[in-house]
């Protein structure tokens, strides 16, 4: 009898929910829905402004533009899910990339001996290890010294940038010098009229892997729990320090892979990082519906967020509008995303 009354009560309760509350509930459950709506709306608008926007060759171009930010945004998502942040991600990528390129190409300007014997495979491997090492350094400082991720990565941003310049001088390694395998991820293949980068496939595989891990493994669940409420996680028997450290190391691994990808995408390796790279990864994560306070968000949302950034950039230039509008649009989107997150977190069933 009592159960009947309860369910009647709940039914009544559900009926009393306003459409807005229902929307809040749906967005709470599927946080990637709002970025998806934004992406679809953006695509429609840009198509209406210039129908070249949806040509296969332009879509291919958009995917190529997304690949570096998109890959690094996976690492940034993991970190932000733990309520951390990585401001050093661009500098770390440049360091790993320069290590890779310099080990593969012997240059007298370099301070590094050609220890890889100019073997590009060994160079790629060591370059990825350098990426992992940057993660180890960040993770160690954050976990062992209990320093805030924001401060630590602000510091390592400078450290990694300086190391790149000190170790490899300020010399760009040009495309003709670069061994073919180093550029492999920059090769394209044809599907119908679409030209896809191997790098894009690599990025999508990484998304699939980390999407799976976050959703279906204990480690993934613990990443969420640690960012959600570290005290509760610790009291539930999760070693929060171990989880956080492992997240930075895994992020370092992704940085290493992204370094290889960047060489393929750009064709050369320059010691000057793309100044927007850091912020773009964070923007992709935030627009993608992941909370900067940690504990909620999806990897799929981040992919959509990364696409939004390039779609807006590409669409505005096709529409003949200044890139200042891109900056403006992205800024507004970030603010909307954060406001939406705040609202969604107040959900009550």
């Amino acid at each position, binding site marked *: 009898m009592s159960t009947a009354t309860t369910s009647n009560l709940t039914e009544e309760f559900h009926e009393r929910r306003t459409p807005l509350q229902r929307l809040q509930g749906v967005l709470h459950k599927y946080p990637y829905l709002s970025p998806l709506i934004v992406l679809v709306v953006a695509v429609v608008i840009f198509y209406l402004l210039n129908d070249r926007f949806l040509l296969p060759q332009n879509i291919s171009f958009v995917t190529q533009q997304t690949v570096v930010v998109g890959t690094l945004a996976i690492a940034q998502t993991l970190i932000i899910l733990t309520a951390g942040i990585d401001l050093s991600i661009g500098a770390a990528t440049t360091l790993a990339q320069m290590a890779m390129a310099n080990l593969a190409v012997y240059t007298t300007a370099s301070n590094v001996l050609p220890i890889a014997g100019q073997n590009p495979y060994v160079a790629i491997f060591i370059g990825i290890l350098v990426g992992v090492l940057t993660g180890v350094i960040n993770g160690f400082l954050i976990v062992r010294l209990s320093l805030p991720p924001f401060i630590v990565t602000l510091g390592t941003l400078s450290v990694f940038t300086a190391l790149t310049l000190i170790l490899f001088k300020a010399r760009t390694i040009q495309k003709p010098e670069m061994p073919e395998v180093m550029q492999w991820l920059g090769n394209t293949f044809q599907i119908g009229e679409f030209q896809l980068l191997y790098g894009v496939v690599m990025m999508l595989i990484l998304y699939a892997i980390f999407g799976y891990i976050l959703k*279906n493994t204990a480690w993934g669940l613990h990443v969420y729990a640690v960012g959600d409420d570290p005290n*509760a996680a610790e*009291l539930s028997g999760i070693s929060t320090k171990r989880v956080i450290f492992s997240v930075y190391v895994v992020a370092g691994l992704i940085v290493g892979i992204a370094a290889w990808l960047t060489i393929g995408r750009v064709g050369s390796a320059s010691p000057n990082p793309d100044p927007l790279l850091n912020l773009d990864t964070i923007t992709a994560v935030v627009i993608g519906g992941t909370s900067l306070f940690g504990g909620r968000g999806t990897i799929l949302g981040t992919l959509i967020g990364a696409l939004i950034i390039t779609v807006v950039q590409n669409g505005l230039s096709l529409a003949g509008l200044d890139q200042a509008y891109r900056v403006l649009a992205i800024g507004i989107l970030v603010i909307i995303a954060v406001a939406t997150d705040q609202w969604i977190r107040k959900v009550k069933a």
Partner: protein
Amino acid sequence: MSATTTVTPVVQGVNLVKTFGRVVALDGADLELYPGEVLAVVGDNGAGKSSLIKCFSGAHIPDSGEMLINGKKVEFKSTSEARRHGVETVFQTLAVAPALDIASNLYLGREERKPGVMGAVFRTLDKKRMRADSAQHLKDLGISTLQNITQAVETLSGGQRQAVAVARAVAFGSQVIILDEPTAALGVNESARVLKMIQDLRDRGLSVILISHNMPQVFEVADRIHVARLGKRAGVVTPKSHSMNDVVAIMTGAMKVTAEEQQLTPVN
């Protein structure tokens, strides 16, 4: 009396000290919990009740003093170590992850993996089984207000959250269950159900530590009442030997428990 004194406490704390900077939370506290009993721990706010039980839960590492489980010395560095000794806790703060669903919270820190290759190699969680088992645990507890096991805990009411925390401890506790104010957010019916559950646990042979400010509840279920005061044990009495007023007087220091009045051994 001579027969009962030989019973080894399932949980024992000897001269436990825990400080936080200059704050002394535990100042040489003792505690004994015997097999199959309900020990209530009462005391004023800040008397050190939570600090005391957190040592046994593995949440605090005492600065000094000894802890024994079944007479064997233990040193817990994390809650999972305490859990492995069969000690489960409902913390005052509940320690649930708000964004995770009910089933994930029940199994947090001890997730079940799928059998076979999927579990061993790909480390896939057996969500189906954990959800089904969670639903069963809640049903066993008579918690009918939680209908959707995949609901995020933050969407639950305070009482429902508490029910989740209690269900988690009860589902896994094999020896000792520690409840730090488990009825604080519960309604009358839910409180009664938790008290009933505590008695059921005792009947099943488990030992229970119950921290509560609710004297009638304490007097209803406790076999012995441990009164904490200023980080120490002011005394242990029974609902039969002392009245509620007496216990309050011991809590505030207005009354002293004499050595003869102490009930440091099991009552039955």
